[in-house]
């Protein structure tokens, strides 16, 4: 375990209880209303590598008993050290062992088969993925995905922007493949700089016009 350079480390929540409660509330809203963009407000000094809501979400959710897997762009960065220091979480090398996965923008996600989807008896043992995206839109527009399912009144729309269409298609394919596993599955939080969008396993995603 390499020594953490504390001099460059940012502070966590100003008030641990209130800060993490507020972020937890945002995550709860995001999962309750899939496809809706929810603002994440925190006073934590998130690492430079991710000026995004994902760091605050992980800071609120992780503790010493939640193994975290980081994508290639985040391993050995200040972000990893920052989470280790403030939450005491374990960093794991293989995504199979993880309960949380954090992927930086444009980083390759682990293969669907590598992620723990829980068991039929204990579906809650599944992994939660926090994925950074540069920007996303929840408007009904061309090529937007249509979201249906619990928490969505009629239909919600989602477009992940600034990502190659091929990786978008791959993501969609993986999500659709996982829907057959229900109640097993993987819950996803898409994080931009200011807010998050929740995609719980109950949300059906289909390409626009399907």
């Amino acid at each position, binding site marked *: 375990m390499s020594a953490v350079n*504390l*001099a460059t*480390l940012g*502070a*966590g929540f100003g008030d*641990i209880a209130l800060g993490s409660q507020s972020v937890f509330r945002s995550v709860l809203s995001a999962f309750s209303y899939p496809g809706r963009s929810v603002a994440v407000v925190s006073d934590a000094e998130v690492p430079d590598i991710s000026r995004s809501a994902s760091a605050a979400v992980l800071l609120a959710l992780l503790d010493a008993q939640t193994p975290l897997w980081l994508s290639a762009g985040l391993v050995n960065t200040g972000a990893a050290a920052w989470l280790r220091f403030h939450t005491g979480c374990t960093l794991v090398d293989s995504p199979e062992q993880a309960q949380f996965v954090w992927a930086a923008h444009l980083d390759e996600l682990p293969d669907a088969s590598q992620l723990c989807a829980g068991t039929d008896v204990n579906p809650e043992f599944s992994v939660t993925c926090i994925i950074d995206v540069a920007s996303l839109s929840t408007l009904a527009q061309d090529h937007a995905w249509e979201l249906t399912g619990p928490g969505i009144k009629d239909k919600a729309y989602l477009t992940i922007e600034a990502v190659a269409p091929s990786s978008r298609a791959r993501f969609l394919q993986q999500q659709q493949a996982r829907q057959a596993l229900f109640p097993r599955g993987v819950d996803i939080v898409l994080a931009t700089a200011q807010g998050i969008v929740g995609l719980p396993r109950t949300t059906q995603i289909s390409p626009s016009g399907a």
Partner: protein
Amino acid sequence: MLQAYDSTVASLPLTRPLWMALLARAPIAMLEEALHAHAQLTPIWLRRPETGLMMVEGRTGGTGQRFNLGEVTVTRCALRLPHANGQTASDSGVVGVAYVMGRIAKQAKLAAIADALLQDPAQASWVQSQLIEPLRLHLGQLEAQRCTDAASTKVEFFTVAREAGSGNEGDEE
């Protein structure tokens, strides 16, 4: 690897592990007195003082198998000092860390402030003379006192060898 950082011998060069070990055992009154105005600072907290339990391990005779001696309460914190001129920029540099036995948050805070000051070359010398040297002396005296107290209870065990001669005595019994 066992390494003794709890030595109070003044000849040892003052390294960070050594001064952290000294600060961990510093009485709160001593810290307060030596740090004066610095004790009143409002630090930028990286980790607010939090109290938890730690398992202390021992070895029989100092060399035997490890065993769990018992749990102790430990308070730890990490902080960053604000700039001397009142700025509260977070890039002020050094981070002070303290792990102190007990549950007194203030003691952990003061020890961490002292740790941060000792890492700052501009401040290290006065902290060393105002705090570390008296602290070494104080802890050395405590240790000597404990040694004297323990020495006074020393008991000499000896066995009396059976006297030789009149060899038949044993056989008759």
